[in-house]
């Protein structure tokens, strides 16, 4: 038995204790939790731990191997950096949600069975929703609600898949599944929602820019990367992922070029980067999966760094739209510098972290002779430099002087950004340490003259294109606007469905009310006031019209009325009705 706790326990339980502390003690706790949790993780040997029987199967709280460990390490590192960045936040909702969210992600990557995975998967959704709602604006409320609905739907899809899978195979172990059965498709799509696949993606670009400044740092890290881990575990080498990943790498860059909200630009480029990872998992060779995992590792750092710099800008200026910003390099030189490091890393400049991982996926695609895919990924590489590498720093820190003068970012933010930036450069310069942690042994060499030269040419000529387009005035001016994306389907489409339902169902309701409640009951009431008399009157009228004999309705009607008023019938009406019902019943019985 090992003297350690299950990997997620410290972050989740510790996170729940945070509101009991105040001031410095709370800050210390928030910083210490990831550190203690990380030390705890180091105690765990490879293998499955905390295995308990459950519903005739077993749950495994910690499955420790190279794939889960590398995600575990980077999640702890990012949890620490995010906590450091968010050190000024006194709001308990955010403190708890952020810590529990990181803990849930750690729990999910170490889950050895699908039930445990599902529990942590849902915990991710709930805690992330609070990070969005904590902004406490009307837009954040709407975005948080949509985020929650989409992820609950995705979670249910996953759960349905898990239940089918377990009942078919009799095993809940979370290992290679592969596409084939209906159950596997449900699990596949359930993971795909969290992975922000095309058309399932708008929760990401909708919600992340609406979350709190520090909440977005947490959000950008865990949900999509947990999904990448799950895909790498359950669906490596699934060909569909190559198409999905290719689309993910390509389409967001178009949106990113015309988007005004700089955090939303980063959200689009997040999908673009995750696309590279999905492709890597889809190709399924040792090189490509290594590339996908390494890129996830690096992306957590440089995307976190970029979101941090934009968060710092937002924290100091209160603005995030490119139309409102510019010239901030004078006020926030350090943040500007860190932003450029993040931009160089995401653009895969040589000596920066993106270079040593993205190229693995590219090379794996080339080895597999996937030409169209290779061209798309190369296009996406040039594009990401264009929008994340140049656009973000240029419009925030340079461009026209917006006249905003503010203080440099607070010290703890600078520290978090500084550590991230240094790590981006260190990984870029000494990639062998990252490579040694990857799931498959590799002797990959990113730094060949050809490769460095090729990448430099690609990027510098992209920069040239940006410059010339900007000087020529062709580069699209930033415009305050909303760009419609696939969330239109449920944001506007939802209204349309609502309107249609209102029209259709309320219409049926009105009609039913008019016919049955008002007219039919009125007629019935009139009829049963004098059932015998009315029956005779209608019968007489029918007879008169049917036989064509001279009409004497008025006279006959009066006679019927007076007879029924005085009840001068040979047989009581009640008896007559009873006899009729009996006759009907016996007829029915006879027919049977």
């Amino acid at each position: 038995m090992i003297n350690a706790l299950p990997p997620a326990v410290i972050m989740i339980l510790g996170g729940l204790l945070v509101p009991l502390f105040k001031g410095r003690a709370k800050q210390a706790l928030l910083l210490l939790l990831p550190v203690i949790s990380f030390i705890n993780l180091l105690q765990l040997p490879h293998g499955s731990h905390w295995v308990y029987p459950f519903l005739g199967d077993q749950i495994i709280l910690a499955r420790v191997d190279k794939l889960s460990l590398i995600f575990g390490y980077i999640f702890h590192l990012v949890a620490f950096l995010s906590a450091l960045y968010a050190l000024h936040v006194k709001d308990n909702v955010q403190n708890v949600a952020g810590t529990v969210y990181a803990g849930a992600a750690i729990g999910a990557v170490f889950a050895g069975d699908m039930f445990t995975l599902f529990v942590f998967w849902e915990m991710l959704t709930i805690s992330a929703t609070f990070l969005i709602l904590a902004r406490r604006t009307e837009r954040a409320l709407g975005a948080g609600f949509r985020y929650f609905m989409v992820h609950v739907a995705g979670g249910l899809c996953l759960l349905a898949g898990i239940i089918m899978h377990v009942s078919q195979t009799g095993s809940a172990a979370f290992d290679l599944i592969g596409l084939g059965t209906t159950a596997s498709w449900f699990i596949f799509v359930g993971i795909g929602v969290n992975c922000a696949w095309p058309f399932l993606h708008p929760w990401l670009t909708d919600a992340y820019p609406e979350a709190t400044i520090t909440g977005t740092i947490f959000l950008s890290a865990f949900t999509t990367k947990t999904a990448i881990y799950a895909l790498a575990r359950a669906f490596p080498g699934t060909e569909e992922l190559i198409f999905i990943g290719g689309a993910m790498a390509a389409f967001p860059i178009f949106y990113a070029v015309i988007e005004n909200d700089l955090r939303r630009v980063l959200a689009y480029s997040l999908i673009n980067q995750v696309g590279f990872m999905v492709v890597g998992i889809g190709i399924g060779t040792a090189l490509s999966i290594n590339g996908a995992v390494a890129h996830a590792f690096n992306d957590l750092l440089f995307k976190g760094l970029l979101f941090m710099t934009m968060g710092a800008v937002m924290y100091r200026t209160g603005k995030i739209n490119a139309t409102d910003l510019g010239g901030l390099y004078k006020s926030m030189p350090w943040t500007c510098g860190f932003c450029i490091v993040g931009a160089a890393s995401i653009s895969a400049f040589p000596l920066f972290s993106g270079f040593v991982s993205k190229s693995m996926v590219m090379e794996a695609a080339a080895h597999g002779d996937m030409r169209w895919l290779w061209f798309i990924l190369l296009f996406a590489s040039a594009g990401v430099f264009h929008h994340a590498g140049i656009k973000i720093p240029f419009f925030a820190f340079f461009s026209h002087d917006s006249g905003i003068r503010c203080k440099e970012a607070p010290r703890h933010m600078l520290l978090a950004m500084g550590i991230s930036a240094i790590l981006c450069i260190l990984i870029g310069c000494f990639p062998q340490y990252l490579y040694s942690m990857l799931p498959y042994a590799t002797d990959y060499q990113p730094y060949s003259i050809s490769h460095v030269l090729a990448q430099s040419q690609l990027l510098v000529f992209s920069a040239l294109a940006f410059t010339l387009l900007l000087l020529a005035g062709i580069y699209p001016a930033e415009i305050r606007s909303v760009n419609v994306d696939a969330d239109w389907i449920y944001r506007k489409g939802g209204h349309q469905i609502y309107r249609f339902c209102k029209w259709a169902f309320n219409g049926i309701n009105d009609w039913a009310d008019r016919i049955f409640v008002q007219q039919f009951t009125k007629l019935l009431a009139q009829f049963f006031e004098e059932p015998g008399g009315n029956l005779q009157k209608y019968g007489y009228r029918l007879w008169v019209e049917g036989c064509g004999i001279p009409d004497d309705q008025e006279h006959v009607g009066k006679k019927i009325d007076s007879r029924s008023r005085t009840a001068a019938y040979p047989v009581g009406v009640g008896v007559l009705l009873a006899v009729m019902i009996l006759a009907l019943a016996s007829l029915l019985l006879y027919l049977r």
Partner: protein
Amino acid sequence: MSKHTISTDEKPGMFDKPQNVKRVLYALFTCVVLLLSIDLFYHKHGIFTWESSFGFYSVYGFVACVILVIIAKYVLRPLVMRKEDYYND
């Protein structure tokens, strides 16, 4: 003018001087020419045959970005751009 005005704000930034912007541009253009001319002397190795042809990455990078911007501006934007309060009603 009050004496509380922060004097550091009055210092012109590095890119307030047009000659500095020009210097950056010249540096970029120099890089462009240098990187392209290396292709004349150094034969790149790649997995695909076209990777080693002269200026492939340079041309692809440039053309890709121009196409990206043109499509985003003239195709995507007219299709998807709405007023800021589009979703608010």
